[in-house]
């Protein structure tokens, strides 16, 4: 392992940490709405605290909002990554079904859980 390698590793860790930090500070609070985007266009906006089942994109994906979290119940895509994804509930989190171009995001909501933000 040479000096340049260490620098690269540190830069990657720094970048990962920064982006993570940004997401935690500016997002991360309990979300309010579940927004569904298909191919970049918003096709539905639902409240996180109302249980429902939604067919997205003519049924290629099935979204279930339950217990103040959203998960992909079913999907007609080959990899099923979206179905296996953990349920989302916090502002900024999202479940993406790339083959079907479906993005389900949690948006809005309360202030973040961070204790303080330096002004």
């Amino acid at each position, binding site marked *: 392992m040479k000096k*340049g*390698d260490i620098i690269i590793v540190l830069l*990657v860790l720094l970048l*990962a940490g920064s982006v993570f930090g940004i997401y935690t500070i500016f997002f991360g609070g309990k979300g309010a709405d579940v927004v569904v985007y298909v191919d970049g266009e918003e096709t539905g906006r639902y409240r996180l605290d109302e249980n429902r089942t939604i067919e997205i994109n003519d049924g290629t994906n099935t979204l279930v909002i339950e217990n103040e979290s959203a998960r992909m119940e079913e999907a007609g895509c080959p990899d099923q990554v979206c179905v296996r994804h953990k349920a989302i509930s916090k502002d900024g*989190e*999202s479940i993406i079904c*790339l083959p079907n171009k479906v993005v389900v995001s949690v948006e809005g909501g309360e202030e973040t859980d961070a204790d303080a933000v330096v002004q």
Partner: protein
Amino acid sequence: MNRKGARLASFGVFVALALIFSYIETLIPFQIGIPGVKLGLANIVIVIALYRMPPGEVVTLSVVRVLLSGFLFGNMMSILYSLAGGLLSLAVMWGLKHLKAVSILGVSIAGGVFHNLGQLLAAALVVETYGVFSYVPVLLISGLITGLVIGLVSSEMLRRIRGLQF
């Protein structure tokens, strides 16, 4: 066999090796619920090629194996993401390779990281949503780890095939 014929045959072997590694990867149940996190075993072949072949050939190797891999194991869209990730990572790796302070480990780590970033960028363009960027930290770390593993294996391989002429 003349030089050109030998080179062509070796190139074919490299493509085949990369495809075999891709196939082996489909047999290993490595699943995290995040798109884009995978071992990338075929990149061992790419990294080794990077250190033993002229750069133009490595690009061709990368493109050919992404295409064939996509036809065999994936779908048309996955080819797009793999190409984006593969070419970006190749460009970065080739650039870093020239730096004396960076060993094959650093090159490979950067390769892994930028492969994931390239795929993420392609995904962001396709779904036209910023939500994809919440995956950046995970993909950076997983790219770092897989890059490190690929680098370790590649460096060991290179040591052992040093005398081999192709």
